[in-house]
């Protein structure tokens, strides 16, 4: 084999590895019941693949090949382990599986294993940041280095977080199971919120200086797709995927040439990605047809109304206000009230919502919430309350960490002072 084609094969192998990682790992964790061991032996199997495949060709069923190789590595490791006696039962199972794999189709069982693994990674007994990292590592197949880079953390910090998580899963007995019916809704909620957190981490970091973070949006969408395939009868899973696709359709348009933030009002709507809008809207319609609306479906419906509007002025703000009120009924939070007020300000004028915003301000829950002050400032500006608007802009700026957004708000503040 020539050097060039060897390199080509290696690239193909690497891509495939990325794709197969989550599948094979899920299966291994399910069989070995040991996160760290599963990851170790899969890593070993990948090294073997990088050695054999370029030389002997990629096997017809790469997933089964990886799974079997990893399993054999596990058998070797367990055999060598000092506590051999206590591992004997596991070894018997592994040998049995090893015989079976030669005939059966592994894909169906893996789908079940992946679902279990998602619930394990998103278990509420793990800290939220850990759930996010673990999901990206095990189901997304991202390397520790990639995750660390995406969350702007040093690699050793992220590696330690992942190691601790795997240790806790094992020591605390966090199960690899699909939750019982009485816990299903709450636990699915945790899975959905982890995926949405990943998406938002990428979406809020739109600025050009952190391009890797935009990949988090793609990763979240990929995880959302996996989840909708695994739980096709859960309209909220479809609702979340629809919401992410609809948001993502505006990604290009919200990025200015200098990495500046372009608000919805000023976005060039022809730059919105129609394919994503269509895909998101179709998914949402199917989800809503199941007659069990939830917070993600409602938010997706709001996003879809924006996507359908020919212009900012032509947006159906009354319908959006109604949807926010519906969302508030399910999720009574001051953030939802704020969004409802903003929508209403476009339906009935900025003046009309000033009392609502004063109430929210008095309640104080949003005191250090940057978007509150940014929205408050904008509504005061539109109501022509310049000094009050300037104050709100100053508070918003003080809470803004994103440079592009800071520049935008400073520009607005300046126009309030002249």
């Amino acid at each position, binding site marked *: 084999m020539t050097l060039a084609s060897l390199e080509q094969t290696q690239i193909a192998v690497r891509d495939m590895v990325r794709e197969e990682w989550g599948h094979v790992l899920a299966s291994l964790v399910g069989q070995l019941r040991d996160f760290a061991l599963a990851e170790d032996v899969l890593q070993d199997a990948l090294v073997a693949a990088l050695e054999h495949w370029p030389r002997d060709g990629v096997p017809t069923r790469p997933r089964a090949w990886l799974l079997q190789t990893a399993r054999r590595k596990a058998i070797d490791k367990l055999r060598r382990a000092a506590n051999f006696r206590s591992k004997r039962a596991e070894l018997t199972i592994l040998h049995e599986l090893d015989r079976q794999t030669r005939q059966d189709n592994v894909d169906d069982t893996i789908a079940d294993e992946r679902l279990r693994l998602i619930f394990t990674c998103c278990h509420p007994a793990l800290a939220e940041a850990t759930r996010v990292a673990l999901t990206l590592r095990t189901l997304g197949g991202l390397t520790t280095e990639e995750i660390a880079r995406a969350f702007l953390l040093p690699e050793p910090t992220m590696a330690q977080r992942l190691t601790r998580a795997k240790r806790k899963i094992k020591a605390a*007995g966090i*199960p690899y199971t699909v939750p019982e019916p009485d816990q299903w809704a709450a636990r699915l909620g945790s899975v959905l919120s982890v995926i949405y957190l990943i998406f938002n981490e990428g979406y809020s970091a739109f600025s050009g200086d952190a391009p890797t973070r935009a990949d988090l949006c793609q990763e979240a969408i990929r995880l959302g797709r996996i989840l909708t395939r695994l739980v096709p009868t859960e309209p909220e899973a479809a609702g979340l995927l629809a919401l992410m696709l609809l948001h993502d359709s505006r990604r290009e348009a919200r990025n200015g040439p200098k990495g500046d933030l372009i608000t919805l009002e000023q976005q060039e709507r022809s730059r919105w990605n129609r394919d994503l809008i269509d895909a998101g809207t179709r998914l949402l319609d199917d989800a809503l047809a199941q007659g069990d609306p939830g917070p993600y479906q409602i938010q997706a419906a709001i996003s879809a109304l924006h996507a359908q509007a020919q212009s900012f002025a032509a947006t159906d703000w009354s319908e959006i206000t109604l949807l926010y009120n519906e969302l508030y009924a399910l999720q009574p939070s001051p953030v939802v009230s704020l969004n409802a007020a903003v929508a209403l300000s476009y339906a009935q004028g900025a003046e009309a919502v000033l009392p609502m915003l004063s109430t929210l301000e008095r309640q104080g829950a949003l005191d250090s919430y940057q978007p509150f002050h940014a929205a408050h400032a904008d509504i005061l500006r539109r109501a022509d309350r310049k000094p009050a608007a300037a104050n709100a802009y100053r508070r918003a700026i003080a809470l803004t960490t994103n440079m592009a957004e800071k520049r935008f708000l400073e520009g607005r503040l300046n126009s309030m002072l002249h």
Partner: protein
Amino acid sequence: MKYMCIIYGDEAKQPQPGTPEMGQLMEDYMAFTKDIQEKGVMIAGDPLQPVATATTVRVRGSKTETTDGPFAETKEQLGGYYILECKDLDEALAYAARIPTAAFGSVEVRPIMVFD
């Protein structure tokens, strides 16, 4: 796996001895304990005397220091424990949520270390 459910509550705010609320709490505890005994889940469990009865001992060098009071002054005090045999954390958490004090205090769930 064995789990210890460590029960914390604010002694000043929880039901006081001699009140009907305390009577209800005791009944709830008895019902819960009976249920987990019958299911074979309970290995051990006891309530503790109030924190005012606590004494803390520290040995530094060859000197034993004995002080009145708990190891640390906290808002919620250790009031009792259960040791349960469960198949995994989910099962342990489900039982922990049924411990009557969980409704107003907190229950910490910790796996018991196994040496193999």
